């Protein structure tokens, strides 16, 4: 069974994605920030990492670059809130919205999903990365 890591600082989003993926038959682990995500990967390298981009201190793009360097095999799906960074995100160093989507793709994310995405889009994206 494929193993997917979901990294997002929004706990509700993680929970929802986890449930959907588990219902689709995947094993899902969650992390609330990039650092926790890297720990989880170190413990058990997943097949696919689904990561948010705008996260405090280390934002998603940075995580993707690290994953690309250390675990080239892991496939990455980037999901973003769209909209801009900004005060509500309290993440002073977050970068601006669509710019970082392009940056994520450039950093190595094969699939980009903008929140709120449909269940079917998520499943389809995963299935594109894990055909088997």
């Amino acid at each position, binding site marked *: 069974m494929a193993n997917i890591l979901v990294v997002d600082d929004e706990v509700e989003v993680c929970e929802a994605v986890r449930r*959907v993926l588990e219902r689709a038959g995947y094993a899902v682990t969650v992390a609330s920030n990039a650092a926790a995500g890297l720990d989880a990967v170190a413990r058990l390298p997943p097949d696919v990492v689904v990561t948010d981009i705008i996260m405090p201190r280390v934002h998603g793009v940075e995580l993707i670059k690290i994953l690309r360097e250390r675990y080239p095999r892991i496939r990455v799906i980037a999901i973003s*809130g769209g909209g801009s960074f900004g005060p*509500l995100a309290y993440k002073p160093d977050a970068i*601006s919205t669509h*710019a970082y989507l392009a940056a994520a793709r450039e950093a190595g994310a094969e699939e980009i999903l903008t929140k709120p995405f449909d*269940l079917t889009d998520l499943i389809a994206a995963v299935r594109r990365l894990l055909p088997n």
Partner: protein
Amino acid sequence: MERLVNSLRVRLIGVVLVILAALVPPLYLGVSAIVREGYAERFVNSLRGYSRLVADELEALDESDFDRHAVALLDSAVLSGQVVFAEIRDRSRTLHSSIATQSVNAPARDDFHFGDQGDQVYFITHTVNRGDHSVALRLGFDELPTLEQIAAAERHVLIAMAAFVAASIAVAVWLSWVIARPMVRLQEAAQRVASGDTHAQLNVGSSIREVQELNYHLERMRRELVGANEHLSREIREREVSEQKRLDLERRLLHRERIATIGTLAGGVAHEFNNIMTPILLYSQLVLDEVPAGDTLADYLRRVIAAAHRARSLVMRILTFSREMDSQQPTVFPLRVPVEEALALLREIVPTNIEIVLAAPDEPLPVLGDASLVHQVVINLCTNAYEAMRRSGGRLTVTLAAVENPDEPQLRAGLYYVLQVSDTGHGMDQTVLAHIFEPFFTTRMVGEGTGLGLSVVHGIVSSMGGVITVRSTVGSGTTFSVYLPAATAQAPAQAPATAAGAGA
């Protein structure tokens, strides 16, 4: 007006009358005395000459038939017209003229002056030698005609005096009218000017020099007044214009700030909204899969999913709107350009008691990003600065400089340009500094500002990959430092640090 003319006229005539009263009587007495003396002197002179001639003739009479010749002599004297008494006393005899003269009683003594003894007759006696004895010839001359001449002359003098008095009174009346008239006109003109009609030219035209001078000064004053009025109204208009412009600018700034805020808000809200919508959408679809198709519950779920989809597309439209509005293509521009533009704008609206100083090196200091955003940053920081110094005035200093590896934790090494805005205002204490960048945080009154200014600045600086810090001590002032990465020649979309972009 009438009162002025009358009071002047009365006073002038009063003065003239006083002078006349002082002058006329002595003048009259003096002149009439001269007149009387003139006539009297001539009368006495002629009677002395005439009586002397008669006496000489009497002396020349020879002795024979003396009496007859003497009487003939007396007759010729009486016939001469002015003699009213003629008598010759020869020892005990007295001879008289044969022509009867009205009886005149001769006084004991001779007259020596006209009008002596008041008997209207001038008696003169000549002692004539007649051989061994002397004879007295006595003549009396009638003073009446001369007295009448004198009386007539004195009447003439009186008439002349009266005419003189009348003439001088007439002159006084005329003079007061001549003097009063220009005064009256001056008074009217002055009142007209006072009541606002300042454009009527003052020209009284009077022969009297003082009145002319008064007119000249009044006219100059009026012209100055008119000039002063115009100057004042011009100044007021200018003031209003500048006030208008300032308000306009402030409103535009506020408007712009609000728009930017909406943009940021939209961005922020959208971002948060999307995060919230994601579980809603996922769970609704998850439950829809669990629920049999025809079930009313499925219908409800489908309505929820549809609503979620509509919400997503709405948010997407808002995002594209705010992105469009703010995000221009990032370009490389010299940092000092937007700074100078902003300062020029600020000099218009900052009150004069605040001095604005710009210290910038000559190099262009190129940065990558949106110049209008930097313009926005400078405006916000400076507005906050001059608000802090509004009451007490002070100095607002903006400095630009290049810094290699600034020791700011959040910045990676490299060349940065620092924009510092420092003011000499009342400063902020630590509690305020902690929340200064949080949105909706403001120390100002409700309605004076949205409290989003600094958070917007923070957003812009971050989007340009820079960082903003603040130092402040209460009572001496505050300094904001904005570090922006120096733009290098490569393409813009390179390392995240150089991200440019929308938002705010």
